[in-house]
């Protein structure tokens, strides 16, 4: 699910800027445990440096092409493919991610929170969802962002709060320029929605009392 890719660094602003790893790659850490490169060679004690087995550095033109594939003398590879290349935007999206598919469930989740969330926060989240909508409609959001938002919404629908949170984080890390304005609203929405079902007091004390009043008034009418 997580996108694993490596982009080159910003050579204009930093000399020898290292490549940038996606959030997915960073959190997975070192999946294929290669033997760490930490060995050293002792200098020969008899005074002569190691005699190299191939021809020394001469500066003459190339001595013909490299060995052919028939001899499998190449260094052994790790199992996974190595993404130290720029990967194009994922091509596995067969159908366009629709705005409604993403915005609908988000608005629904927000609606669910209406009773338990302070008005100010509710309005703030709505405002940011509107921003998201605006940016999406004016084609400002790239395909990976749209695709991952669809996944986020799916997690939200399945009440998989940690999963949704993780996707929001991966979007903030990998695509902060595109998402920073509204993503914090989605983050808050996940947090508010998460705190709903158990009826536990969320961070805002006043809502609890409101909730209790509502329940007690309901039970009174039954």
């Amino acid at each position: 699910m997580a996108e694993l890719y490596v982009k080159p660094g910003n050579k204009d602003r930093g000399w020898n800027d290292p490549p940038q790893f996606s959030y997915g790659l960073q959190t997975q850490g070192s999946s294929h445990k290669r033997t760490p490169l930490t060995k050293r060679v002792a200098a020969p004690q008899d005074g002569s440096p190691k005699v190299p087995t191939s021809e020394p550095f001469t500066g003459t033109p190339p001595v013909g092409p490299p060995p052919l594939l028939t001899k499998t003398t190449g260094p052994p590879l790790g199992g996974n493919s190595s993404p130290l290349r720029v990967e194009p935007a994922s091509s596995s999206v067969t159908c366009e991610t629709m705005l409604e598919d993403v915005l609908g469930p988000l608005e629904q989740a927000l609606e669910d929170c209406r009773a338990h969330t302070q008005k100010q926060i509710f309005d703030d989240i709505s405002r940011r969802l509107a921003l998201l909508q605006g940016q999406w409609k004016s084609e400002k959001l790239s395909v990976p962002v749209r695709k991952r938002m669809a996944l986020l919404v799916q997690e939200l629908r399945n009440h998989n709060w940690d999963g949704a949170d993780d996707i929001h984080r991966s979007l903030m890390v990998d695509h902060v320029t595109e998402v920073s304005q509204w993503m914090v609203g989605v983050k808050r929405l996940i947090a508010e929605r998460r705190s709903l079902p158990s009826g536990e007091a969320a961070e805002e004390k006043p809502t609890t009392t409101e909730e209790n009043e509502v329940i007690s008034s309901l039970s009174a009418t039954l």
Partner: protein
Amino acid sequence: MATYLEFIQQNEERDGIRFSWNVWPSSRLEATRMVVPLACLFTPLKERPDLPPVQYEPVLCSRPTCKAVLNPLCQVDYRAKLWACNFCFQRNQFPPAYAGISEVNQPAELMPQFSTIEYIVQRGPQTPLIFLYVVDTCLEEEDLQALKESLQMSLSLLPPDALVGLITFGRMVQVHELSCEGISKSYVFRGTKDLTAKQIQDMLGLTKPAMSTQQARPVQPQGQPFISSRFLQPVHKIDMNLTDLLGELQRDPWPVTQGKRPLRSTGVALSIAVGLLEGTFPNTGARIMLFTGGPPTQGPGMVVGDELKVPIRSWHDIEKDNARFMKKAIKHYEMLANRTATNGHCIDIYACALDQTGLQEMKCCANLTGGHMVMGDSFNTSLFKQTFQRVFSKDFNGDFRMAFGATLDVKTSRELKISGAIGPCISLNVKGPCVSENEYGISGTSQWKICSLDPTTTLGIYFEVVNQHNAPIPQGGRGAIQFVTQYQHSSTQRRIRVTTVARSWADAQNQFQHIEAAFDQEAAAVLMARLGVFRAESEEGPDVLRWLDRQLIRLCQKFGQYNKEDPSSFRLSDSFSLYPQFMFHLRRSPFLQVFNNSPDESSYYRHHFARQDLTQSLIMIQPILYSYSFHGPPEPVLLDSSSILADRILLMDTFFQIVIYLGETIAQWRKAGYQDMPEYENFKHLLQAPLDDAQDIMQTRFPMPRYINTEHGGSQARFLLSKVNPSQTHNNLYPWGQ
């Protein structure tokens, strides 16, 4: 000897410890004759995925001057429920909860495999972690935008109940009041005048007044010790507003005329940050994170004036005593650093600029408190962005890798004393029977405070053997050391980690081979290097090199086998064979050679050297060089010009840089495009292999290294060529290619 290597490795994995000597010379005289002092590299919070913490308080020795923790070295009488402290020999009663213990039912802390054990303890209310951002607004537009985005992103990485605050500075210093209401307020301070902690707290309205009008803290609800202040609010409450506030930050509005630097009041900004935290949350884990894009040019702590035609000091200026502002600036930042460390807080410095930013003056802020130091060219680079992301990386349990407010207490058996420690810590000035008169690093104490640390933070701790010559070897034949680290875990739990280790004493006269075989040359090299770098801060460069050379010569005299007047007969045993190489590369390293580096760069390299674990420190001293070819799997090669061959690819890791170098023939094949032809697929794999290995290294290293991909004849090849030993020819008469 294979067995000692295994022994050393197992101990490092289990206890996070590497001793220079693993069999200890039993008298002071003999120990000094060994040249390399008895010392260890200790990683207090070494990652131990297999070590579950226990949920009870440690059992302590009842002698008030001892208070050692119950450990596997203690003698236990299970019948009488008594234990004997192995440090002071006091007999102690087990507490009532241990009534059921027996030989077959041992508590974990007595089992040998728990020489390192972690306790979770309840010690008062759990306070949330605090992150105070101190942001320079005298940046170029592109840089400021990138920095703002990184800060907004970090709000998603912080724990939801952490407290966060914002101070911005340029010519003035603004402390932002964080509130959920629409209007954002801030307190503005002049950047020219330093204020005392009390003045700052008064001006911000933080002092506990008799009148209730300006209360900084809301009344704490009963039973919930949850506190915040107007300037430090929980992330989950303030993230939306703070995201907007950050998004609206503008460049410092004061115009900068041609030929001038912007007026940057870093000294006052930091002072206010320290004072703010001092007044609101002393003695709890907090990070002051300073983001700066240039040198301080105004107020206390200024490092250079605002005239561009006067450059910032270089090493040449410092040596000629021509650095006008340096002493005063260092004094200012040292004062701040000491206060911060006393309060249990830490200061990180993220400095991104093409010219120097004053790390030389500000380094104590990071070094004394355990804070990070990151040096980059611009905030809009992957180096900064990813390094910053990695500050918030999580471990196998989903907890942040940062820990706070650690105190390290070291106890030794009678035959040893503690000479000092070198690392990112301050002294707690605890005198006692374990403390030696020697001064190695931060000395005169058996306890240090490390305000911020992570699983790789490593201290070098130096010991003195105090047994008299010809005194008998102590009963039991082993000396012991206990390290007790109390700290605030990132989950805000308080924990105590206890490591107890022992090593055998040996008579240097008739057990010399044992002592020799148990020498850990890697640990010794790093420990000597730390001593050298520590000295280099206060002594002249050439003096340090002379000292290092003298130590090497003495060591070779003691442990080498040779015939007089015959250099080619010189031999060192396996356990010493790499040591001279390490010393050779150390003396040409940027830690001891300031040539070719600015004072800021030297400070940066030394900062990282003084805190990394053994493997990484060794990489810094003598970079790793691996050779890739068609002839077999990648192999380590000598860091020597003889390893540079036309048909090899080299991967060099200096810790700060990863260099991939294509030999001449390889480069020509790549240029000809053989890697794109299917029948030469193995060439494609050969080109890819070092890239994969480089990626592996870069994926986890903190800070992110620079990445250099170059080839024979390329200008960037200088990074490799300047590191390798330049042995002359293949027909070389001198050992080690000199």
